[in-house]
């Protein structure tokens, strides 16, 4: 769950960006360029780690020496629980699988699920938020209640229950896992978009636009692009970080993606508990480390963005002032006027 303090209310668009579709976007890039100090460090560290994660995921087949479910090569089986050596840099698991390959392919699975979940929840959350906020009425009230209920519910439990339900329908694959995570994130987008749409209804310039005959769809689009787009990047990155953790949590509980379908860090960690107790560190260390680094990357990125974009957190830069020597103004004393007759004003 993204727990950074997001600006709760909609951000009033400033005059400069009003009306331009990419005004919001431009403001984001400008804010990023101006970032200094800790937020700047977090942004860049997060961006680099996230990029590495994405590259690993996309080029997994090129990077990993074997496929995630390969247990034999060159005519003979891999060693069972073999410690790291020249053939298997990260060792092998109890199922004779190569840990390096599984760790690399785990990034791919995580990215797939993450992307699907973010896209699903973005579409559904924005759609529902718009409908609720713009049209209001009983539909709005019910949607708000449902979303509040979903939001209040422990998110991992929600994902577990959703996974339990969806796996009954669709089996334990990437899409099922993504859907289970989607349920958790819809309320966040819903809230932000609804609040924006609500204030769009009341904003005077929207009223003016409508009076001039603009269609609701045009009004909504213009307003959203300038407004919601500021908070969405933060929520999305925080959700991406969270999605990796939730997916692994499901896998760790044995409720995630079936081990035959893809490599998944949480599942591997679950299988590695006994190994760790028996002193075999490599089966748990590498997937665990990979996961923490991936989550860290997106969290840093999200936090950095939040620091930069959240107006209440922005800090004016202070520059020390050195006062130049002061030159006092001259003083001139006007001569007392010669006796002015009573009643005559002083000139």
């Amino acid at each position, binding site marked *: 769950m993204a727990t950074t303090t997001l600006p709760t209310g909609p951000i009033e668009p400033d005059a400069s960006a009003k009306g331009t579709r990419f005004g919001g976007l431009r403001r984001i890039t400008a804010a990023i360029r101006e970032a200094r100090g*800790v937020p700047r460090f977090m942004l860049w560290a997060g961006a680099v780690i996230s990029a590495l994660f994405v590259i690993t995921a996309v080029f997994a087949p090129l990077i990993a020496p074997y496929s995630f479910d390969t247990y034999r090569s060159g005519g003979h089986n891999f060693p069972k629980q073999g410690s790291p050596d020249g053939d298997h840099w990260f060792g092998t698991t109890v199922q004779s699988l190569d840990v390096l390959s599984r760790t690399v392919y785990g990034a791919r699975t995580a990215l797939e699920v993450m992307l699907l979940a973010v896209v699903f929840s973005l579409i559904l959350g924005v759609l529902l938020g718009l409908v609720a906020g713009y049209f209001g009425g009983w539909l709005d009230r019910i949607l708000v209640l*449902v979303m509040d209920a979903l939001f209040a519910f422990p998110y991992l439990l929600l994902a577990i229950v959703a996974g*339990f339900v969806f796996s009954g329908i669709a089996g334990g694959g990437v899409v099922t896992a993504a859907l289970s995570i989607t349920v958790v994130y819809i309320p966040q987008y819903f809230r932000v978009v609804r609040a924006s749409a609500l204030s769009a209804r009341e904003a005077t310039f929207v009223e003016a636009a409508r009076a001039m005959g603009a269609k609701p769809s045009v009004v909504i689009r213009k307003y959203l692009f300038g407004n919601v787009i500021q908070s969405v990047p933060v929520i999305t990155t925080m959700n991406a970080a969270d999605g990796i*953790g939730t997916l692994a949590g499901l896998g760790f509980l*044995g409720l995630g993606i079936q081990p035959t379908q893809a490599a998944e860090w949480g599942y591997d960690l679950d299988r590695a508990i006994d190994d*760790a107790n028996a002193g075999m560190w490599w089966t748990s260390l590498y997937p665990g480390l990979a996961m923490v680094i991936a989550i*860290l990357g997106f*969290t840093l990125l999200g936090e950095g963005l939040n620091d930069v974009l959240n107006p209440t957190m922005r800090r004016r830069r202070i520059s020390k002032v050195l006062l130049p020597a002061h030159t006092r103004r001259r003083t001139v004393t006007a001569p007392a006027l010669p006796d002015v007759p009573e009643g005559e004003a002083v000139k």
Partner: protein
Amino acid sequence: MSNTSKQSGSLRRYVLTRIALAVPMVLILLILVFVMMRVAPGDPISASQGGKLNATELAARRHAAGFDAPLYQQFWDYLKSVVTLNFGTTFSDRRSVRDIIIENGGATLTLTAGALVFATVIGIPVGLLAGRYRDRPVDVIARLASTISYAAPVFVTAPLLTLAFGSTSGQASPLTQLNVPTQTHILILDAALDGDWGAVNDILQHLLLPSIALGLLIVGVFIRMIRINLIQSLQGDYIEAARARGVKERHVVARHGFRNALVPVITVLGLQVAMLLGGAVLTEKYFNWPGIGRQLIDYINQRDYVAVQGIVTVFALVVVVISLLIDFVNALIDPRVRY
């Protein structure tokens, strides 16, 4: 105090309104749970017993359990079961869900409370320090630490903690072997009531690592929130006003800054406890802690719908009750809330 009665009156009114507002929330949650359980294909009995029974037997069992009744009838029965706090009997091992809650709920409660204590004890001072000395080294370190603690899931921190601090917890929990008379079903209370301080000590030692592992889940959030709140409250107008009256800087920061920074934390505590309840499932699984979360996972793996529905319903009710309690505490502390 001439207006004490007026204040307590408004507090009572607030509590009653808040409870009334919670009713639709509970209803929505129950509908959600019910719908989710019915979305799955087939019905609970076919799903769990499908391969094991023949068609007529299956139909008989379905009828007996009421799964061939119309949906509204089923929902009505579900509502009744919730109101009477009798959540049915599991399919797989014929236990009463209520018994599961009573027997295992205490362990989850103890673990969650331990985690909350850890997160508070660490999170509040660190968050205050970071906010007070913004952008100084202590702030940067606290922020990085909180980000890392946030990024590391329970099942990664737990093994690390086990490796670092010895495996007192291990896999087989010796807690169940403790022999204390059962009174509250909360082991640590039972041991204390029994006067068995050795057992209390033993439980506390077992509780330590799981509590830390679970507490790390939210300590980062605590640090971050408190830091931001303090930074914002230190920019407050009443802070400048207090300074203008010559209040010592130390008192300005402590009395006006810290206190006002901590109040908003209470309002998000509900979400944090919900997060802990979710994380408890993972913690209980790793440390073999005998809580409801572990039970839930077992029943999910057996696809036991009644057990899952019952346990999830209880979780939902607990979440609502906790958020109610937190609102009440908040109203006691912050006089503005009551009006």
